């Protein structure tokens, strides 16, 4: 199989799994217990916390483990809204956030909060000036994703952090697609809250973390026991935490070299598609994007049908077309770029990983043009286009 859907999830690396395994069997103690078996687990969690913190430029006591990115986003946004509701009721975000942020903001709108959804430009980016212009006296939170999950565009996080700091507004970033893939320094970038998820960088599913800047009062989201210094109740997912730490550490080793290799392969894919397939467009800014992301719209063709044809050849990619995700609406991200509906329905996202090879990309480039041609031959939109232009 040729796996080109690393933005959806990644396989757990063998060395990550190896670190995790003892914590399922021999080292099963509950970290909250007093005996030595349990205390070894407590130490494993503390060590993991220090590793995660180090890789983000944070202090260990600023890292809180969660069940994943969605929980971290919910906790950060709902928590700050609750904590600061006396101060104001206005939140600033963008119109291309992940649903974990968008739907959380929509929920808060039903409870008296006002949300500004900054519109991205046709390249899928917002500017720090846009953020600054949206700040009001009652603005309590800015939540802007680090990198977009569909089109891979990278937001100007450091500059937005500077704006937020200047105005004294709390700044959260959903960095689920960025952690382990881009260098991050929460202090230098003035980030107050940051969400991450283990399975996006060769760690296990079901584990994530929220960085909370020291001194920021974020109320508990899950109430119960005193785990995570009373901020996040629930017996710790020790194997997950250990795996997350190992995964983030290995992700940031030789990051520049790994990214250079992936980017070269990704650029080879982009250039190859442009060369071979007419009437297509790369969605999102050409340069300011994650090194592994290529999101294409193929005119006159619907995305899911291409995915099915690719799947028959053992090529796993995904679509901006929400047909695949249980909703019939096209991608809100692609619509936000200003794409017409038929183009928003015709997108395919390829996200490369550490282990993809040039041979695999060559196979995609060999198969894809014929698949697009085949679907166009069936398309009434293409028929109309040909007639108009003949």
């Amino acid at each position, binding site marked *: 199989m040729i796996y080109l859907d690393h933005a959806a999830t990644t396989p757990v690396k063998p060395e990550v799994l190896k670190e995790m395994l003892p914590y399922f069997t021999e080292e099963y103690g509950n970290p909250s217990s007093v005996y030595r078996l349990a205390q070894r687990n407590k130490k494993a969690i503390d060590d993991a916390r220090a590793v995660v913190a180090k890789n983000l430029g944070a202090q260990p006591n600023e890292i809180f483990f969660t069940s994943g990115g969605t929980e971290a986003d919910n906790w950060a946004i709902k928590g700050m809204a609750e904590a600061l509701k006396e101060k104001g009721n206005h939140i600033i975000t963008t119109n291309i956030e992940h649903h974990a942020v968008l739907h959380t903001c929509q929920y808060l709108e039903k409870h008296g909060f006002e949300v500004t959804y900054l519109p991205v430009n046709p390249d899928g980016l917002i500017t720090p000036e846009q953020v600054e212009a949206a700040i009001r006296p009652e603005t309590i939170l800015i939540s802007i994703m680090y990198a977009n999950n569909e089109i891979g565009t990278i937001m100007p996080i450091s500059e937005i952090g500077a704006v937020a700091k200047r105005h004294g507004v709390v700044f959260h970033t959903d960095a689920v697609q960025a952690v382990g893939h881009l260098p991050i320094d929460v202090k230098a970038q003035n980030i107050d809250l940051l969400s991450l998820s283990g399975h996006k960088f060769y760690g296990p599913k079901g584990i994530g973390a929220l960085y909370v800047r020291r001194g920021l009062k974020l109320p508990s989201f899950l109430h119960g026991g005193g785990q995570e210094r009373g901020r996040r109740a629930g017996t710790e997912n020790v194997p997950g935490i250990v795996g997350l730490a190992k995964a983030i550490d290995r992700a940031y080793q030789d990051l520049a070299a790994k990214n250079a290799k992936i980017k070269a392969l990704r650029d080879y894919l982009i250039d190859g598609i442009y060369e071979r397939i007419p009437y297509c467009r790369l969605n999102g800014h050409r340069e300011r994007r994650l090194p592994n992301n290529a999101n294409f719209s193929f005119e006159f*063709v619907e995305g*899911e049908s291409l995915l*099915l044809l690719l799947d*028959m050849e053992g090529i796993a990619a995904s679509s901006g*077309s929400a047909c695949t995700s249980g909703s019939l609406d096209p991608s809100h991200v692609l619509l936000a770029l200003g794409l017409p*509906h*038929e183009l928003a329905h015709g997108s395919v996202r390829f996200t490369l990983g550490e282990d993809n090879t040039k041979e695999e990309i060559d196979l995609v480039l060999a198969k894809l043009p014929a698949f697009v041609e085949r679907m166009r031959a069936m398309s*009434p939109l293409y028929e109309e286009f040909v007639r108009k232009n003949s």
Partner: protein
Amino acid sequence: MYSQKVIECFMNPQNVGEIENADGVGTVGNPKCGDIMKIYLKIKDNIIQDAKFKTFGCGAAIATSTMLTQMVKGKTIEEAMKITNQAVAEALDGLPPIKMHCSCLAEEALKAALWNYAQKNQLSIEGLTPPPNYVDEEEKHTHSEDE
């Protein structure tokens, strides 16, 4: 998520294309919902001699187009009128709930093509009403932008 039959009909679609001087043409759907289906019918002596389609859409939309065109060939107009979206879905061994609208689109496209045939020949077909989502060939797709 799809039945084997749907995958078969998608991988080996039948009756793709246009019919020159078709007796009835029906286009339904719009780019917004992500599916556009266009059915061409050749009708002689009240019998559907040939049926072809062009479809922009997902795997289920292509499969229902294939199945519908196979089902109507050789049928009288009255028999074709009895083809329901459920019948198309059943012939495909079922569709995922989220994809049932593709079978509805197939039924609507057939009705639209028959409506077009009836209009052209000033016929009245029992039970046939102006189809929903009917796109008149003259102004196709232009109205869907401002919906």
